[in-house]
């Protein structure tokens, strides 16, 4: 990644993290982008917007959109935290300084549920290697827990790939095959 190179423009220096995965894999598992608990900026980041196209998301653009620096030094983190504390005083913005996320936000009824920004990319690709998901598991399962690994929030069968144009056209053709004479 050229922007990850240490010899970069004067204004922005990104450090190349030796343990970072290649960007192609990152697109499948967005959890890698914002490592929870390692920056205090987690709780004070910007909410995700559905209007942004996400399939061509790179870590830099994610960081720019979120206003969160990742892969930077501890002093950078501290500076950031200080800025944010000044920007959001805890007395007025108590909800931004919570450390815990209420279970109600994640597990409750879909109407009241709130998905946090790091959960934007959690629909697993059909060929993903996430334990408990994939085409082999959960398809003929009789019980709920069968085919589901511990700690995995989703099941491959409870998720559909995005509605693509070929499917749309096929379904329209099927419906119109049942049209009576309307001409």
């Amino acid at each position: 990644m050229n922007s990850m190179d240490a010899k970069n423009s004067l204004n922005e220096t990104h450090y190349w993290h030796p343990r970072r995965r290649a960007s192609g894999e990152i697109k499948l598992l967005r959890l890698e982008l914002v490592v929870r608990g390692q920056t205090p900026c987690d709780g004070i980041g910007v909410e995700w917007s559905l209007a942004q196209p996400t399939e061509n998301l790179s870590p830099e653009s994610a960081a720019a959109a979120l206003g969160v620096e990742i892969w930077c030094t501890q002093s950078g983190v501290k500076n950031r935290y200080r800025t944010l504390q000044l920007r959001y005083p805890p007395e007025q913005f108590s909800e931004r300084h919570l450390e815990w996320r209420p279970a109600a936000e994640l597990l409750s009824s879909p109407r009241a549920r709130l998905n946090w920004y790091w959960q934007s990319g959690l629909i697993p690709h059909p060929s993903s290697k996430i334990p408990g998901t994939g085409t082999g598991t959960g398809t003929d399962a009789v019980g709920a827990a069968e085919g589901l690994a511990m700690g995995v929030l989703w099941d491959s069968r409870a998720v559909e790939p995005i509605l693509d144009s070929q499917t749309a056209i096929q379904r329209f053709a099927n419906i119109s095959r049942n049209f009576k004479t309307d001409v």
Partner: protein
Amino acid sequence: MNNNKQDVQAAEAAEAAEAAEAAEVAEAAEVAEAAEVAEVAEVAEVAEVAEAAEVAEVAEAAEVAEAVGAVQALQLLTQELVKAWPRLAEILSQAKVFPGFQKFLDGYRGHSVADKLNSKKADEKRNAQAAVGEALAVFFGDVFRQSGFLDASKNLSTLQIQDALRVFEEQINLGLYHWFGHNDRNFQFRTVVHFCDLDGVGCPLFEANGEEWFVSFSEHGMRFGLETDAHIPRTAPAYMAYGLEEFSASQIQNRVSKVRRPLFARIRTLQREVCLLEEEWEHRNAIVAVEYGKMHEKVRRNPDAEAQNELAKMFERLGVFRNEMASWMLKTFIALERWLTDVIPVLKYEPDILAELDALDAVVLSGLQKIFLPSSVSRHLYSDHIVELFLAWGEARLLRHPDDLSCQLLCDSARLFLGITAHGISSAEFLQKKNFEWVMSFDPTSALKTFSRKLAADEHKVFTSLATIAIAQKLWPSPLNNYWMMCLASLAEMPQTFPDKQMPYPVRPLPQNINIHMAAILGRAHGFVQEANVDAEVYKEREFLSNFFAAGGAE
């Protein structure tokens, strides 16, 4: 064949008559005669009916043969498009190789941007336009030829070809709405159109019935038709792509445990698709509103007749466009409401799926409220057709939520808009109920504003008062509200209630005599007057006061 059939039937009837006669030989002669007459009459009737049916059948068969030709031709086209769709996707994806496209894509926000072009860029754009246009024309030529539509179109009338092309166009635009290239949701059909400046560009397709048929491109899709047709592409309603019939009530009924997870997945897809529909609506409306706003500003600065003419024409175009978009979205919402009504009773014992369906309901509701905006906030007026769709949606929702007052208000005002006065204003019944016995699930004022355009002033006042009372009852809820309303009403009417017992206007003290009055009151308070008789008290007070005045007052 007619004659044979009639003969056969007559023969059979005659045989039956003979058999009946033979069976009734033992009975009285009058009965036999009557039976014979009746049979003959029956036979005659049967023969007539048979003949009429035959004639009708022949006529129908002729019509059906003609109509079947058109439908078959259409189905040929439809199936061929399904087979050829990957090629179309490939043609559109090929736009990526044009110079400057990647940069355009990175900065693309869904609308065309006037670029300052040097000659080289203009050349590149023109080349791109030519390349894509040619490729698409060739593609459609192949589709029409290989499906056999060209041959079939020789037997079809202009109207039938138009209808077939309309359905074909709807299918293509539905596919284009869902298409995105290279795994990038920003790379849509409108990206290609805006990059190559294909908006409004047309290509001839084929010739039939002596007329030339064209395809023209716009950012919203493709339009097939004659050269003189309006350039507004039509899209099939989005629900046709959702596959709702795979999850109808009869499909789910006895297989709930097997169907649970796919149904869950499908409901999540529906939620996402409705959100995407709403975003599409907002995007398209924003673009046309900005165009109109620019023209409006131009006219405001320089109001001359031709500019105002242009503005009026643009407003008309905008109106037609908004009507099309509204009807497109409403048809999907109506289909989803009907599906929910269909499916929810079958899923009584599935609380998590019901929760997801509830969320889908909420998302459809929020989408519907967006459609009110152009007519409640802006000056757009929806046509009768759109209001009928609104009414259909409202009635579909009332089947599941019969206590929803905002929906009842919507239906009532929509009916009055359309001139259906038979139902009256049934939403006024909520005035007799307690405020927890009905529900206000969305803001009724946006619907009432939309439909107030064609209501009489009195009807509008009635709706305004109903909405005010409803909002007040929900905003300051108290079980005593009706009681207080009655108290206030009777208070306001008090003077007219007992007119003969009304007292004459009482004496009020002049400001300079106020201390005399205070003295009188104090005197009474201190037990100066001891009788319980009120009249005596009053007399005594007046006596005291007149003595007081006679004695020169307080000086």
